[in-house]
């Protein structure tokens, strides 16, 4: 049962993150979808560990974590620059 629920968690987080990337123009949606994509990657790596009976020793979690944290930083800076030039329809609140 936990196996199926792991798959269902992966599916829910993937669909929500991918749709939130394109659905709204708000910057927070991008951050939230980035953290959900990180969740998705961790869940998929654990799923691969369970299926193939291997262990990544937490290295994939560290690599994806560093990459997504830096992507979040990049996105926040780019968003600030873009909103200063072209405007923002949704003010954060």
């Amino acid at each position: 049962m936990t196996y199926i629920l792991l798959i269902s968690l992966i599916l829910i987080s993937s669909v929500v993150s991918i749709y939130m990337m394109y659905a709204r123009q708000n910057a927070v949606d991008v951050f939230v979808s980035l953290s959900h994509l990180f969740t998705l990657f961790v869940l998929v790596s654990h799923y691969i560990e369970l299926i193939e009976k291997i262990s990544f020793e937490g290295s994939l979690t560290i690599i994806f974590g560093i990459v997504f944290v830096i992507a979040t930083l990049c996105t926040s800076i780019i968003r600030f620059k873009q909103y200063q030039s072209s405007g923002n329809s949704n003010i954060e609140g």
Partner: protein
Amino acid sequence: MITVLIVVVFFIANVAMVISNKSNFKILFSFLTSLIVFIFLNNIKYEYSDLYLTFVVFMNFIALGYVKFSQTGKVRVLPSTRNRMTNNFIPIVSVLISTLIVVILLNNVSDEILERDIFSTRENIFDYFQDFNIMFVTGITITILFLYIVKRVKE
């Protein structure tokens, strides 16, 4: 039974996150979903779930810092037109599609065959910190992202 409860709470938190209007509530519910995933990973005895929690807390901290800094008014934001159609329509469609996929998946898969060897011992160990190529690619990616940040800040 408790895993069913976890997934139901996860789904409710996802819906609340998608339909919530304010950024603070959105980050709060996103953190709630991450905590639920952390509890789930603890529940199935994943050893490195605390690493996951650390990175998620850090990402949510950056997002909350962005929101609070943009509310101070130090960055001038120009007004533009609001797009109501895609704002309100696509998240509802996404929630419905995810519900449909999960229902289809839970309907057709039998538990007993899959659950038989889920907690068996790990035979191989792949530590990617030993692999030089992957560490090289990761280092190059982080360097490029860092240079991009520096270039953006200087502008």
